[in-house]
């Protein structure tokens, strides 16, 4: 599609949409679908037909609005009214109120800090556009960045913009994206590949899923820009098979993008060719590791390989390969459109832009949020998250999933950025944020993560394969009240070993949940070991029956 054709398409779409007086958006992302938002949507459509208002009211299925726990969510574009926990029976009332006052009974909090404190870049279209219609994406400015990059910029220029933006990889380690791109661009050899890592494996993280379900074209556009920048002609989205809805929408989006020549050959009327195929993951957390992911895309067991060589030099089928995750690619179109400097103006000195978090656990609003880097944990948990329910006390916030750590209450005022989190013994990770209150036992939490690492270990290298199993056994022993102080010492030695000698990131970071809980909650370990009690009452410690003399 040439720029002129694009403009025409947008104009047509705008005219079509403007014919409607009212636009009612129903969330059809997985969260709300699971509370039957599809039935709500159908009920609204029926109601409008019944009232004969098909020509003035549009019912639109849209992506995630963030407040997943309060679903099904319905919003009215014109008034900004948000309805929560909507039932099909509410349809008549909602339609009837379009001209008058909102239905107070199901009205949600649209002015709450939950909305006002967020800054949406990645999620800007989520909950607003219909993920199944490329036209809706185009209307909100979609593919204009790609058109601009292809027609006005050289690969070096776009890499420079990404570099300037300060964007860092949103998948875990926070490697500077611009640097990665330029490495792949400079790497000798062809063909080159672009892979989007959508194998969101962290338990407690669902950012990528939401983006793919709510705004899949944004990811495709980011990938196409990246492909142009590094000189790739083939891309893959490696997505979890556990996300069927995301896969469906992604595949649909690829089809639409091909039809409109945003993918395929002669993209945007230029000579640039780029294709994207979907590759399904199959339930292996380790495939979040770049080299393991590549092995999996190649159809093999997801075993990681020692680096170097890095995928940027020798990746998929030995060719230079760029791997970024969903959120990273979702940031590209805005950066390309508005410039690196604009992006760099958001966030902190070393962590630029925004970050999407999946806020879950013992927090009032369990939601998907996007905030500028540098916001404090306290603001996230208490202002946006609404604090801890049931009058309980916050104990810790777990970030970074199985590779991360638990941050205790006293550090809540630290700004959330890559460096601060590392300093606290955790990591940014992909953005899972689990809030824990006093009902959580930190030893049990450490055991939970170690079980995860043990069963997700690919088994290739010895420290990770056996070390995590031994650590799990030790933690289990502690939670059973059967461990002694020498076991704690052994646990710490194993942490040191596994962290320093494992082959890949999974093993190297597997001890983090143990190390961080040991650092901040050592007293809880000691309670289990010395006094044989679990302060939170989670671990079932059998007190040996007293032997009467």
């Amino acid at each position, binding site marked *: 599609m040439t720029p002129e054709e694009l403009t025409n398409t947008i104009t047509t779409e705008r005219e079509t949409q403007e014919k409607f007086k009212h636009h009612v958006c129903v969330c059809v992302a997985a969260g709300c*679908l*699971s509370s039957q938002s599809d039935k709500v949507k159908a009920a609204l459509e029926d109601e409008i037909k019944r009232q004969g208002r098909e020509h003035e009211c549009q019912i639109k299925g849209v992506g995630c609005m963030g407040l997943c726990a309060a679903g099904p969510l319905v919003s009215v574009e014109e008034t900004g009214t948000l309805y929560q926990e909507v039932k099909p029976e509410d349809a008549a009332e909602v339609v009837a109120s379009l001209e008058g006052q909102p239905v107070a009974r199901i009205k949600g909090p649209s002015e709450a800090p939950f909305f006002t404190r967020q800054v949406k870049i990645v999620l800007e279209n989520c909950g607003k556009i219909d993920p199944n219609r490329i036209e809706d994406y185009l209307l909100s400015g979609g593919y204009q960045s790609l058109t601009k990059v292809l027609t006005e910029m050289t690969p070096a220029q776009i890499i420079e913009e990404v570099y300037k933006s300060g964007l860092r990889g949103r998948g875990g380690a926070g490697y500077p994206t611009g640097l990665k791109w330029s490495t792949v661009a400079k790497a000798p050899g062809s063909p080159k590949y672009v892979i989007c890592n959508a194998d969101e494996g962290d*338990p*407690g993280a669902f950012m990528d899923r939401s983006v793919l379900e709510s705004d899949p074209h944004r990811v495709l556009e980011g990938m196409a820009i990246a492909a142009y920048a590094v000189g790739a002609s083939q891309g893959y989205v490696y997505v979890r098979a556990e996300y069927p809805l995301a896969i469906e929408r992604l595949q649909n989006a690829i089809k639409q993008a091909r039809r409109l020549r945003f993918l395929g050959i002669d993209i945007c009327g230029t000579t640039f060719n780029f294709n994207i195929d979907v590759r399904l993951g199959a339930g292996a957390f380790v495939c979040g590791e770049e080299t393991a992911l590549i092995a999996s895309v190649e159809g093999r067991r*997801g075993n990681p390989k020692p680096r170097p060589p890095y995928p940027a030099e020798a990746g998929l089928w030995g060719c230079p390969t760029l791997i970024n995750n969903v959120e990273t690619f979702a940031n590209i179109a805005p950066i390309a459109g508005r410039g690196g400097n604009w992006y760099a103006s958001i966030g902190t000195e070393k962590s630029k832009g925004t970050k999407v978090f*999946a806020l879950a*656990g013992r927090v009032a609003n369990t939601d998907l949020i996007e905030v500028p880097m540098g916001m404090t944990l306290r603001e996230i948990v208490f202002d946006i998250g609404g604090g801890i329910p049931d009058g309980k006390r916050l104990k810790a916030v777990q970030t970074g999933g199985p590779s991360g750590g638990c941050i205790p209450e006293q550090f809540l005022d630290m700004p959330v950025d890559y460096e601060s989190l590392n300093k606290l013994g955790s990591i940014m990770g992909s953005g899972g944020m*689990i809030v824990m209150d006093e009902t959580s036992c930190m030893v049990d939490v450490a055991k*939970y993560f170690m079980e995860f690492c043990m069963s*997700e270990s690919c088994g290739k290298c010895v420290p990770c394969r056996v070390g995590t199993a031994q650590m799990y056994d030790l933690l289990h022993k502690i939670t059973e009240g059967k461990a002694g102080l020498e076991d704690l010492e052994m646990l710490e030695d194993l942490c040191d070993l596994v962290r320093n000698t494992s082959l890949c990131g999974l093993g190297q970071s597997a001890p983090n949940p143990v190390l961080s809980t040991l650092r901040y909650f050592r007293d809880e370990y000691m309670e289990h070991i010395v006094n044989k009690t679990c302060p939170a009452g989670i671990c079932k410690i059998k007190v040996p029956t007293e032997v009467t003399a």
Partner: protein
Amino acid sequence: MWTEFGSTTPPSSDTRWRIVGAAMRKHGYRPNALIETLHTVQETFGYLDEQALRFVAGALRVPLSQVYGVATFYHFFNLKPQGRHTCVICTGTACYIKGVPAILTAIEETYGIKPGETTSDGNISLVSARCLGSCGLAPAAVMDGDVVGKLTPLETVNRMRRWTK
């Protein structure tokens, strides 16, 4: 059982093999389409049986042991038929914190199955998922394809009881 290696002729006249064949053809019978093909087989037949694995190995020219190695590496693949009903319990962090262990205990006490097991009558399979990405609904499960959230042990077992009537 030995399919002629490299043969693209399906092992039986079951028409469902056409779907599998089409998937392989789409990928040009390239060995690297192994995982994609296994997904198709599982989607079509419900699980990966030995016959299917041998056929795929032969058609894609991937060594037998490698096919088996891949099929067992990824937890998404089942090598055994699943129950008529499937309950996927999310064991993600948010669900864990909000009480999944109690739900699993309740299911085990009621049906005597642990994650990865199927009731002896082949009626219900219990599966655990690393994370369903529905943390807002924790604790969550997928019961015969429907995501259900904010579960309690009692409610979970009650829902499963409807399958046993």
